């Protein structure tokens, strides 16, 4: 992000939690997580200490691309003001050995398949539980169908 802008300004609302994602100089979002330099373990979201060896973890970029391992579309009343319906997935990240849970692009909810290549976007989606809008990361198709 640019020096003059906070993440709130870039994304239009405060992130749902700090340290989950950021944007590079070109404005492309990427995920942030933890890396343990002692045992080469990655975690998402970031954790201060490595769950395996308890060393301090470094806050690192995890990239913004991956492949859908499994997914679902939730059609019942959503929590946190999320769209109805909304889709979610477990995504295998390209740049770190991690399978993470994440939102999918609700504008094409129900249109995803296992094996789809996806990329991260960030938008104002839902609220914080108290009704205040929040920016959340979500994945959309990398290639058009």
């Amino acid at each position, binding site marked *: 992000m640019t020096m003059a802008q906070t993440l709130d300004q870039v994304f239009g609302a405060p992130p749902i939690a700090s340290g989950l994602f950021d944007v590079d100089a070109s404005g492309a979002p990427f995920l942030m997580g933890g890396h343990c330099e002692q045992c080469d373990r990655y975690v998402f979201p970031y954790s201060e200490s490595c769950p395996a060896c308890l060393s301090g973890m470094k806050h690192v970029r995890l990239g913004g691309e991956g492949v859908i391992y499994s997914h679902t579309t939730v059609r019942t009343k959503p*929590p946190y003001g999320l769209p109805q319906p909304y889709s979610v997935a477990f995504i295998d990240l390209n740049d770190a050995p991690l399978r993470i849970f994440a939102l999918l692009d609700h504008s094409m909810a129900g249109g995803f398949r296992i094996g789809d290549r996806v990329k991260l976007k960030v938008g104002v989606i839902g609220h914080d539980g108290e009704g205040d809008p929040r920016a959340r990361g979500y994945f959309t198709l990398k290639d058009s169908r």
Partner: protein
Amino acid sequence: MAAAYIIGASTTAFGPQPEKSIVSLGRDAALAALSDAGVDSASVNMGFFANVFGPLLFGDTTIGQDVFGAIGVQRAPIINIENACTSGSSAFHLAVQAIEADAADIVVVVGAEKMCVPTLGLVGGGQSDYASRNGMAAPVGFAMRAARHMHEFGTTLQQFAAVTVKSRAFAAKNPLAQFRKPTNVEEVLAGPMIADPLTRAQCCPIADGASAIVVASEKAARANGARAVRVNASVLTSGESVSAPDIVRWGTDIRTCALAYEKAGVGPDDVDVAECHDAFSISEILHYEALGFCAAGEGGRFVESGASAPGGRKPVNPSGGLLSRGHPVAATGVAQISEIVLHLRGEAGARQTPDAKVGVAQCMGGDKDGDTKSCTVVVLSR
């Protein structure tokens, strides 16, 4: 290590019970279990009470002393337990440990829950949890397991629906179950979609209800005669954070079942009847595989074959399970064990498993990083 026995068990009806409080539900179950055991409250050395939603829905905390106080158990140590869906079976686990450690002769376990209030939405992990704040909730993780199971093993929508059909067929024989009307595959699949591919009838209903068990030492069980049921194994484990969990070969489930079998000295072929945590249709399919009733990936074809249905060679969830009996969260783990007790005693009525000698109760609770938070497996025999 001393041996532990179950000498009393009782479960209330499950379903909306607006006139009942958590305490009155727990009291009803506990009094009936004591009466079933033929012991009075003065002989109770220790109590474990399980509840999950009291603090969230009613602001009620440390309810165990109120329940045990209401059945005349005063001064004895009472411990309150919350461990998600395994709260009740975790309480049971601690009761068994107390008996095995020779710290008590008679320990009462009570699980009681009241969930049927309008303010309860999708059950998730809470506001501090990344996944919950991004749309994870109870059906979501299981729906993704179902999608992956279809992808890897060719499991069909009809096979998922067969779990519910089988569940209702058993529940029709259980007067305490919440959903007792028989159904069929077409009807299950035609219902509203909750999270693809799980329709509403493939998701367990919330409920109010309670269940209680009296656990006893060998000495105290002697008076109970042939009705006493032996606890061959009670295992409680936790899940783990793995960077890329395999959600259809469930490590924690498989490991916990294997540990319980090893401890009990039995294998899947020895099991006459089982209760498992069928919170969703896919859950039961995964638990068949973890319990070793069929090979990995074969769970869908196993239920379709009728093997786990009434009259099948491996009856599973004869109570109707979570899908039909209902799921008052902290009562469930106790109710599953109580159901197995009935079959081992030959007291399960219309749903009795013929000549049941060995039974298993499997339970899981909570979501964390693609794994469960807790898992319990209990092996019982007569």
